[in-house]
């Protein structure tokens, strides 16, 4: 009995050592994976503190919403707080829906959202905005990249109808004539296509659905919802999960924000819009597509109507725009100055310029000018 106990003790110690060793190792490993889109230290250099006008900003500011703009918000907040001492900004990147709920309850000063407020949400916002109502300010644009993994093929062009058929699992092989027609001179293998989508509800899914519905209405008949609508294909959880599967599986194709493709060096599909040449998924090309957007909001509301069928040269049409939602009038007195000052910085040239480094797209100048004007007029 005694001998056994001694052995047990020794084994426990060994086990404990193994566990703590493993813990130390995992702690090291996890650092690299966090925030794939955050550029390393570049953000600091490009943003001179001089462009930030702190004004009368002070105290604490709470905001919440879309996780799609998390990396952009992190950069802005870091730079802003470095320039304006005494101000603390907390952006809780939960989800668009939760952000809007918190905004309408009056617990946050502004919300981030992947989609513009719905009419009933505007109606509800009048309670917390007292004299005014909630408006949408487009602040961050971004391309949704179509990533693929196909041994031996490092350039691939697709158009909206083909994409729709691929994600609807109507096209099952990589050497399908429809794909071959768009890729002259590329040797396509006789492999099965494995299309990956998000397993949980997601704004990225909804934006892809909007694009496919607008650009390929004949081949994509599903409603643009946050839930994946088509019956076939495989699912993985989160943008990171989809990206990991595409990276791993030969023959896979999936969709995620560009930053995930960049950080894991996944090849992305060029989209043939019918323009002079297929458009590559880059921040600049996404900006060109957003430039074709029309403002559909009335009054101070700047909600955008994206033109998914744009044929402008080099414009990458599969984009998403995320908004900041604020009250046009009736903002809380204690946070108004800080909100104006912070959003002015986000909409400033410097604030928009650093977006590119994080894989996002700046809002086109014309619309951005209106955003700045509106931010200045907040009361």
């Amino acid at each position: 009995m005694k001998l056994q106990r001694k052995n047990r003790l020794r084994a426990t110690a060994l086990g404990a050592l193994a566990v703590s060793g493993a813990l130390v190792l995992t702690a090291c490993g996890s650092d690299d994976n966090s925030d794939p889109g955050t550029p390393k230290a570049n953000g600091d250099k490009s943003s001179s503190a001089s462009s930030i006008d702190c004004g009368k900003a002070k105290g604490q500011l709470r905001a919440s919403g879309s996780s799609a703009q998390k990396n952009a918000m992190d950069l802005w907040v870091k730079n802003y707080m470095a320039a304006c001492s005494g101000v603390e900004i907390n952006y809780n990147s939960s989800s668009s829906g939760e952000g809007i709920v918190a905004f309408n309850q009056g617990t946050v000063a502004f919300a981030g959202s992947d989609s513009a407020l719905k009419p009933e949400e505007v109606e509800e916002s009048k309670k917390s905005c007292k004299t005014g109502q909630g408006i949408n300010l487009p602040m961050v644009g971004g391309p949704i990249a179509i990533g693929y993994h196909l041994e031996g093929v490092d350039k691939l062009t697709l158009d909206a109808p083909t994409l729709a058929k691929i994600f609807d699992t109507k096209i099952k092989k990589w050497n399908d004539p429809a794909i071959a027609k768009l890729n002259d001179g590329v040797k396509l293998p006789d492999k099965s296509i494995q299309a990956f989508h998000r397993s949980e509800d997601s704004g990225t899914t909804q934006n892809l659905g909007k694009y496919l519905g607008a650009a390929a209405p004949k081949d994509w008949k599903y409603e643009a919802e946050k839930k994946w609508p088509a019956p076939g294909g495989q699912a993985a959880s989160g943008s990171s999960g989809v990206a990991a599967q595409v990276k791993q599986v030969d023959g896979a194709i999936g969709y995620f924000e560009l930053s995930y493709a960049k950080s894991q060096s996944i090849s992305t599909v060029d989209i043939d819009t019918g323009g002079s040449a297929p458009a590559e998924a880059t921040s600049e090309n996404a900006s060109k597509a957003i430039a074709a957007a029309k403002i559909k909001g009335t009054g101070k509301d700047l909600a955008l109507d994206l033109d998914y069928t744009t044929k402008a040269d080099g414009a990458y049409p599969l984009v998403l725009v995320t908004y900041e939602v604020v009250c046009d009038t009736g903002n809380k007195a204690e946070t108004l100055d800080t909100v104006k000052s912070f959003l002015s910085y986000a909409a400033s040239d410097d604030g928009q310029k650093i977006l590119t480094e994080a894989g996002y797209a700046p809002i086109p100048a014309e619309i951005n000018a209106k955003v700045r004007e509106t931010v200045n007029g907040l009361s």
Partner: protein
Amino acid sequence: MASTTPIDTPPAPPAPPERDESPKSTGRMGDKVFVGLSRGSGILLLVIMASIAVFLSYRAAIAISKDEGNFLTTFDWNPAGDPPVFGIAVLLFGTVVSSIIAMVIAVPIAVGIALFISHYAPRKLAAPIAYVVDLLAAVPSIVYGIWGALVLVPYLEGLNLWLDQFFGWTYIFEKTEVGVARSLFTVGVLLAIMILPIVTSVSREVFLQVPKMNEEAALALGATRWEVIRLSVLPFGRSGIISASMLGLGRALGETMAVATVLSPSFIISLHVLNPGGGTFAQNIAAKFGEADEFGRDALIASGLVLFVLTLLVNGAARLIIARRKEYSGANA
């Protein structure tokens, strides 16, 4: 952790005596206070549990009453849709099938390891092996999930093709869809690895409790070591193995993150376990909870309640089996 269940003290030969009607007080002040305290906390616990149950059932009832589909038979989960439609058929099927696969793989292996540790391995080796196995239980499930997604899934593709080629005729192992091994079968294999330490450790403790006299008597009659195990160890340990398996099954039924990482969820029921697709209760809750609105959460709570009932049934069945073999109850579960 697995090692919380074992009974470390040497076994008391007869089963413990029937419980007394109520604790007898000696009349001292301290005793009275202590009795009051323990009774009070017991009742408090029951009240808390009951109110949780009431709250959950209430929320679930709200959700089910607004469900435009059939809660039991609809193959879809869209409480945010218009009209809201959701059903648990796919989840129930996926949970049960993946757990069955896990049990079929894990229990024989676990019993084998437990027998090896308790009866075959040299003393010096037994304790370290036992601890290594127990250590597996301490690995967080998300780590299993990541390992499963990055290592297990690519490796299982080969096994899947092999199964499809030679056992495709069984229908179950026929692969009709292309796709990597993000299937219920893979989930089953991963769950088997995860429940192995619990089943092993409890079985091992039970095997160690087999009365030495039984074994020696068998040996004296000229039995080989395997015959000793077959004639005295296994019959004595049967109820222990069953309760160990039920502990493992409980973990398999409720496993969340590992399943969510490894499975490619979709709302279909298919007996082709090698095809990607399917879903389990816990995985569905983890995947849908973040973006769900209040009604969506109610719907998920309703599905969670079904899982709760399922677990209750499994545990109840296990207790029945164990109670029937009370004379052998090595691990008085």
